[in-house]
């Protein structure tokens, strides 16, 4: 992001500061916050029966005539060029229909990188895709084979002969620090924040901690492999993809392949897990190009190794956190700086200082992130990018300070909670972290924690309790559109290109639509996962729900006007204006005079209409530029560490969340738990092994990269304040990512409490505790 953008965002924020809140989106709280029936109620997933029966069709499961299967060949060299390429044997192999290399790959431009200014810019890498013989990172695709069966394609891929001239590659994190860049912005925030003189405060404070924390690379590892089934029909392109960005992908593909926007259709009704990894990468472009060259539909499912090779994960980081406090425990300095990898052709800044910017007030602040260039598959957004690992560093440091001061770590946090956003000074829209802590501590039994580490033992096991704060910002994306269609039978269809990867998208939006339109749940159908529908934003930044909700609210307002127009004068509603009515009881009713009511059915019947349909876009999401809108959480962990082997066993985990209105307790609890479990992996087992000698990932398998297994996962308790955010649609803030934040620190703090050993480098494997 640029300096220009800093100025723009900065001026918008300044200008908004003068605008009365009621003029902004969310200025008047969404009436559904007060008036809800289906929202907030436990409801099973609407797609549950299909999913448990294996009837939900994923992208690689679409049957097509004349389908051919693709296999990719990856470069084992990190930097260099191809010096010899012989595809004759592969082309002659049984069943092979095409071997595609840089020689015959159609000439294409590069994808614009994900950005905030252009919503169709969704590329994760701006490197050329098989356009030349250059090798730019280890694992880069150098050839693609199509054959009648997957077995034939796999075999033929092994027959391609390639020689490379290798060149020196930049692969070492520590060495590359010297050439680190300091970007002007991190996403939409100014990167470098300097308030007061933090180093001087540190030097003079009675209490201080100042440490380096390290986190390794990680990979998303959705169980569904990246896959697409693609067909060209003349100049029309049909892509069944596993994607978190249906509409934006379609738009980006149209641009890249020089097609009309409406000639590209991306379908993705179910995605088998995304976590930030299921964006637009090289494999979609390659499969689409190959399908065009071969004149046949193509299925490409990456191998698990292939996912590691060409889909980036979370960047490794080295973070410095220093905190100083006065005798009363007030923070006098807060320093959070560090390094992460972000090659110039990548898009994800791994914003690990974001939580630090909003969680605590301090007299002096020094925050800056630096980027390291390596020759590597570009890292990308992975569940709570930045915050997941930034909270590890920050919240470990707070725990260290509390221990140094002899203060309870919750008490220390509560003493430093800010009244307003500590950096922008903006008021919080709603903020109840203190309550989340008090509620969580009570339920967890925090008072049973022994302040002195290493003092609780049961047999060979040392017992420890820890806690930490999690945080994630609210966002709502522009460009959310929803179509509402009322049918003559009184039912409604809600349509937008939204994504479902396990969040319960359809379920929750049906609950929302039911309340918004005054209908029962079973009268609502939700259509999604299709770029032919009104465009929804990508599923990312935990903002899909609020973004769609905002658009649906706008569409509902428009629908009221349309229905009043259709109702005419021969209706109990006659004479009422749009602002004087609302949806109620399968129709429209006067707000002041609820008895003045007419059903949708009646309105449509009288108008002789089969359907009435409106499409609307959500308002510009200015609310989070004027207000500080953040979710936060208190995570509590109880664990055992073997005094013999150093093995860590987590016995209990509790998350107490402050995330606005909870729309469906069942699916929300599952999302919180899911994030927390990924947090356990982050804390204890997950690490992408990047061999700095070669620039190659060495554990590109689910056997060697350890995501938590059932036995690693304890029963997880979740609770929430449930206090609505008056500035957001439905009073809700996103919950998809906050679950992972704070967990690694809560685990590390519990490990310290159990053993007296402070581990500042993830994952906390047993060798660090011997």
């Amino acid at each position, binding site marked *: 992001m640029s300096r220009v953008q800093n100025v723009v965002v900065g001026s918008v924020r300044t200008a908004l500061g003068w605008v009365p809140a009621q003029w902004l989106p969310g200025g008047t709280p969404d009436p559904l916050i007060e008036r809800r029936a289906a929202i907030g109620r436990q409801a099973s997933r609407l797609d549950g029966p299909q999913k448990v029966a294996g009837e939900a069709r994923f992208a690689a499961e679409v049957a097509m005539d004349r389908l051919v299967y693709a296999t990719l060949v990856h470069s084992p060299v990190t930097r260099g060029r191809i010096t010899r390429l012989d595809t004759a044997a592969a082309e002659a192999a049984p069943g092979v229909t095409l071997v595609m290399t840089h020689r015959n790959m159609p000439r294409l431009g590069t994808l614009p990188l994900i950005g905030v200014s252009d919503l169709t810019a969704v590329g994760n890498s701006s490197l050329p895709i098989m356009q030349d013989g250059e090798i730019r990172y280890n694992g880069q695709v150098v050839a693609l084979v199509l054959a009648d069966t997957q077995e034939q394609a796999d075999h033929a891929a092994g027959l391609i002969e390639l020689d490379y001239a290798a060149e020196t590659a930049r692969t070492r994190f520590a060495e590359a620090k010297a050439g680190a860049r300091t970007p002007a912005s991190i996403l939409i925030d100014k990167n470098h924040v300097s308030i007061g003189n933090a180093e001087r405060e540190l030097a003079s404070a009675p209490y201080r901690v100042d440490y380096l924390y390290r986190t390794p690379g990680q990979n998303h590892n959705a169980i569904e492999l990246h896959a697409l089934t693609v067909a060209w029909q003349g100049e029309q392109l049909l892509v069944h993809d596993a994607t978190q960005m249906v509409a934006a992908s379609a738009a980006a593909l149209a641009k890249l392949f020089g097609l009309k926007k409406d000639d590209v259709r991306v379908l993705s009704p179910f995605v088998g897990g995304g976590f930030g990894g299921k964006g637009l990468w090289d494999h979609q472009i390659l499969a689409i190009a190959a399908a065009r060259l071969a004149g046949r539909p193509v299925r490409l499912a990456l191998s698990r190794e292939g996912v590691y090779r060409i889909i980036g994960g979370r960047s490794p980081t080295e973070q410095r956190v220093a905190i100083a406090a006065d005798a009363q425990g007030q923070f006098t300095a807060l320093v959070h700086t560090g390094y992460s990898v972000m090659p110039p052709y990548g898009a994800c800044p791994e914003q690990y200082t974001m939580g630090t910017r909003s969680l605590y007030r301090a007299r002096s602040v020094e925050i800056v992130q630096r980027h390291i260039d390596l020759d590597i598959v570009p890292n990308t957004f992975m569940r709570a990018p930045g915050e997941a690992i930034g909270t590890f560093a920050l919240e470990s440091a707070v725990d260290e300070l509390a221990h140094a001061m002899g203060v309870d770590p919750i008490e220390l946090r509560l003493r430093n909670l800010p009244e307003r956003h500590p950096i922008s000074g903006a008021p919080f829209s709603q903020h109840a972290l203190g309550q989340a802590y008090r509620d969580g501590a009570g339920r967890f039994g925090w008072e049973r924690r022994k302040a002195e580490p290493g003092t609780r033992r049961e047999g060979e096991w040392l017992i420890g309790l820890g806690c930490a704060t999690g945080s994630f910002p609210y966002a709502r994306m522009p460009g959310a559109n929803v179509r509402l269609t009322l049918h003559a039978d009184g039912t409604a269809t809600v349509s937008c290109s939204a994504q479902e990867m396990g969040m319960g998208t359809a379920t929750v939006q049906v609950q929302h639509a039911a309340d918004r339109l005054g209908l029962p749940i079973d009268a609502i159908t939700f259509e999604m996962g299709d770029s032919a529908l009104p465009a929804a934003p990508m599923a990312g930044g935990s903002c899909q729900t609020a973004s769609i909700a905002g658009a649906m609210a706008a569409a509902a307002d428009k629908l009221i006007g349309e229905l009043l127009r259709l109702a005419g004068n021969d209706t109990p509603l006659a004479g009422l204006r749009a602002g004087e009515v609302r949806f109620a009881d399968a129709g429209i009713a006067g707000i002041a005079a609820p008895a003045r009511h007419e059903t949708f059915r009646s309105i449509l019947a009288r108008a002789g209409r089969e359907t009435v349909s409106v499409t609307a876009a959500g308002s510009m999401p200015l609310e989070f530029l004027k207000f500080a809108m953040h979710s936060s959480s208190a995570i509590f962990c109880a664990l055992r560490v073997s005094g013999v082997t150093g093995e860590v066993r987590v016995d209990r985990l509790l998350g107490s969340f402050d995330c606005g209105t909870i729309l469906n307790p069942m699916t929300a609890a599952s999302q919180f738990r899911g994030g927390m479990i990924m947090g356990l992996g982050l804390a204890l*087992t997950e690490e992408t092994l990047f061999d700095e000698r070669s620039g190659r990932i060495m554990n590109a398998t689910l056997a060697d990269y350890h995501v938590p297994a059932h036995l690693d996962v304890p029963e997880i308790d979740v609770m929430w304040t449930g206090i609505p955010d008056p500035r957001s649609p439905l009073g809700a803030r996103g919950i998809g990512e906050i679950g992972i934040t704070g967990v690694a620190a809560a685990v590390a703090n519990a490990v310290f409490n159990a053993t007296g050993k402070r581990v500042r480098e993830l994952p906390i494997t047993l060798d660090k505790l*011997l």
Partner: protein
Amino acid sequence: MIPVGYVRASSLGAIPPMLAGDGHRLLGGGTNLVDLMRKGVERPSLLIDVTALPATIEEAADGGLVIGAAARNSAVAAHPLVRVRYPILSRAILSGASAQIRNMATVAGNLMQRTRCVYFNDVAGSRCNKRAPGSGCDAIGGFNRYHAILGASSACIATHPSDMCVALAALDARIRVDGPGGARTIPIGEFHRLPGDTPEIETALAPGEVIVAVEVPASPFAGRSTYRKVRDRASFAFALVSVAAGLTLDKERIADIRIAFGGVAPKPWRALQAEALLRGGPATSAAFEAAAAAELAHAEPLAGNAFKRELAKRSLSAILAELAGVSR
């Protein structure tokens, strides 16, 4: 995967001549071989499926057990005699892989399984003397958390990944084989070879020889034996260190003892030195710790696995104390 032929073996006797062809390989549950074929590590021309062969588990005349080569891992672990007389074997098997894999994998396949060294598995991008003799070893100086601290060589530091074999080593099992040179029996301690400068030769099997059965002699250790596996995930992960141990006590003295380590060596590592130090001696924590230290004194750790020396020592001491009922 290259094209491959497939036949089913009709009887054990029919196998040796079938194995004579170039690239002919026996296929059991496929849990290792099929994976390695996909990775290009293994490139057989013919698969001889042995899973339909009899897979009996029978009591031997001497009170031991004879386990058919094609017996499934889960069948061995669940067998009533194994559970009662060889709980160490049952537990070792149950600690390995997942229930699905144990249902598929055979006993012979478990003996024959190859290392999980990530460099061995990386045909396209890494050097490996075991896979491509003379090419070099990228694990030395690379990621070697899962690699050997005992018995390795400058050519290869890979570990044998089996749990079952560690228990078999502690139980003094014998591998019954048949082949062109006739039938013979190989003690488990001699079945797997240390790498030396020929890491590609992993077992004592002669060309054309096939594993027929595993003999487990009668064991006096049933009551005081166990298997403990230490790993990076609570379940479904390979061992960093595992210990199989059994002992008998004569009052406060150790009458007899068997110890084997997994995860620390290119083969199941029978801790003969520790056994010798302890046999006939007092069952005390101090003795256990001294024996463990002596066994691990020869360890040659690398940057990524140096912790294993301490981990193995502690694990062994703790297990022996537990088995002997000695408080630590």
